[in-house]
């Protein structure tokens, strides 16, 4: 084969890249507008409606005190917690799925959120703790399960398939622990624990939001440094090694960020089933190519949680449904569709 210079050079490299970058920017822009719309509607809707023209002045500090109370004390904390938890879950799912090369590898499927729930239920029902202590236990539960899976699955490097299988095992273990704890508990405590294991943002407090926000900043900075490594890891361990990547330490770095994001979000918002699971695949489908789509995945996570909370609090008047129920209703059909079609999909060589 000879190289002929006369051949028309179809798309130049920067052009191909710009095309993808424009698409990511467009998708992110549309998602951001959608998120803003959900936030605006959620702020105005509820037992005490606030009209749109009163929302902005109130947020800027020029509104009536009653409006300010409802917005700042009741509605804004839920929304901000929802956005932050959604961002954390969306990114965590994208990282797990890319790292383990498996669409089922998301923290809610592989037992990491389950570990958090089991630990929280143990705290509420056995230790009788509440508030920040429950969050701390949940964080510890997520990290403990992640460590246990890593230990059991990484005998021959960190293979995606083993990790997912061991993780699914832990998810069932966590479920049975929660079930056992609930059967022992008295009714009122059981309701509190059950609500926790579903997840929701109704109990949001500004203090908790501060903790999440402060945790997210260093994690996201660290993630930015990992992005070129993740893009190299996507090419497979051997190729990545050949390109000079320290594959094992890069994998553990990504895993640590993903676990920390899951743990901190679960600690304050509960497991919120399927948010991590659905966000990244939707984002990737919208963006196309092999883009990591971290920002779109984060935005979709935020949209799913805020929308779920809005739907949960308005659809059935007078009944408080945890947002995690709605995210489950959104995510379960996707899981079924994925399981039904996964083996029919194209495999790459």
């Amino acid at each position, binding site marked *: *084969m*000879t*190289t*002929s*210079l006369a*051949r*028309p*050079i*179809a*798309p*130049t*490299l*920067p052009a*191909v*890249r710009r*095309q*993808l970058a424009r698409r990511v920017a467009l998708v992110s822009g549309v998602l951001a507008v959608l998120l803003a719309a959900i936030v605006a509607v959620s702020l105005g809707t509820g037992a005490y409606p606030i009209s749109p023209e009163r929302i902005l002045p109130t947020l800027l500090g020029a509104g009536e005190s009653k409006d300010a109370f409802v917005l700042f004390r009741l509605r804004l904390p839920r929304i901000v917690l929802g956005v932050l938890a959604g961002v954390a879950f969306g990114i965590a799912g994208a990282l797990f799925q890319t790292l383990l*090369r498996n669409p089922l590898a998301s923290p809610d499927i592989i037992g990491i959120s389950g570990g958090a729930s089991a630990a929280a239920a143990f705290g509420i029902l056995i230790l009788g703790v509440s508030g920040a202590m429950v969050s701390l236990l949940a964080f510890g539960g997520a990290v403990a399960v992640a460590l246990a899976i890593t230990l059991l699955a990484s005998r021959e490097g960190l293979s995606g398939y083993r990790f997912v299988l061991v993780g699914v095992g832990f998810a069932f273990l966590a479920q049975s622990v929660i079930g056992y704890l609930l059967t022992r508990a008295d009714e009122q405590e059981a309701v509190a624990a059950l609500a926790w294991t579903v997840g929701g943002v109704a109990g949001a407090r500004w203090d908790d939001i501060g903790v999440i926000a402060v945790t997210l900043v260093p994690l996201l900075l660290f993630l*930015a*440094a990992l*992005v*070129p490594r993740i*893009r*190299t890891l*996507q*090419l*497979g361990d*051997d*190729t990545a*090694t*050949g*390109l*000079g*990547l*320290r594959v094992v330490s890069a994998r553990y770095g990504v895993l640590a960020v993903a676990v920390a994001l899951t743990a901190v979000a679960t600690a304050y918002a509960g497991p919120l089933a399927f948010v991590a699971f659905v966000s990244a695949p939707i984002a*990737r489908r919208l963006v*196309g*190519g*092999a883009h990591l789509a971290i920002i779109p995945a984060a935005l979709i996570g935020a949209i799913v949680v805020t929308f779920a909370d809005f739907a949960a609090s308005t659809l059935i008047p007078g009944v408080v449904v945890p947002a995690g129920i709605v995210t489950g209703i959104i995510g379960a059909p996707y899981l079924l569709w994925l399981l039904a079609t996964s083996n029919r999909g*194209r495999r*790459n*060589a």
Partner: protein
Amino acid sequence: MTRTPDHSFRAEGLRVAYDSHVVIDGLDIEIPAGQVTVIVGANASGKSTLLRSLARILAPADGRVLLDERDIRSYSGREFARVVGILPQSPIAPEGITVADLVARGRYPHQGWFGRRSSDDDRIALEALTATDCTGFADRPVESLSGGQRQRAWIAMALAQDPDILLLDEPTTYLDVTHQLEVLDLLHSLNRAKGTTVVMVLHDLNLAARYADHVVVMAGGAVAASGAPAEVITAETVRLAFALDAHIMVDPVAGSPMVVPLSRLHPLTPASVPQSH
């Protein structure tokens, strides 16, 4: 195009094992700079294992690999990857990745901490696409390509890495004969044009004989013979390495040795040989 600098690249006393299974034991090899080296051998003779050890994918249990007389383990990942690149056997392309994106990722060892791109990166990636004739489908997903195009795209990624020594593990697997020749021609012209040292594992002895400047025959985890194809590819080495009786002729096109395998059904008879070597 600037000529690639020559490097000394060799292994001494190499011993590689998977758990307790020893694949390579006490192997010494020297890769001639600026040449095309082809490693051949029967299945399980340790060809791939040797290549992967040279690429630092496998760590030896004993012995060492020396690049410019320095143990390759003492190099940083990117420092080593700027000199030695590898194209593994049947590499995995992430779903949906375009050829341009794949090739651009070959620049990883030349980029800094946050993966900042320089204008050199685009220029070298484009050169790699042009050299492999991939420009026409640079914006297409890798999985939509034919086997030959796909392999060219992967070679383009390895060229974008711009290594002085390029290792390839069976780059012609799964390709039909036309595409096999196309890929080998490409690697040969890369070697001749830029002076890149090429080391590849091949299955086909005749293609090995045609394209190699230097042949390494492996058997039982050791080097059974090495040298120029005409010296190394003989009936004796073929019998030793493959337990196969063969008749060696001269390739009428390339002038290299050509192996005609014999079997119980097709033995060598005086009448069946038009020109003997």
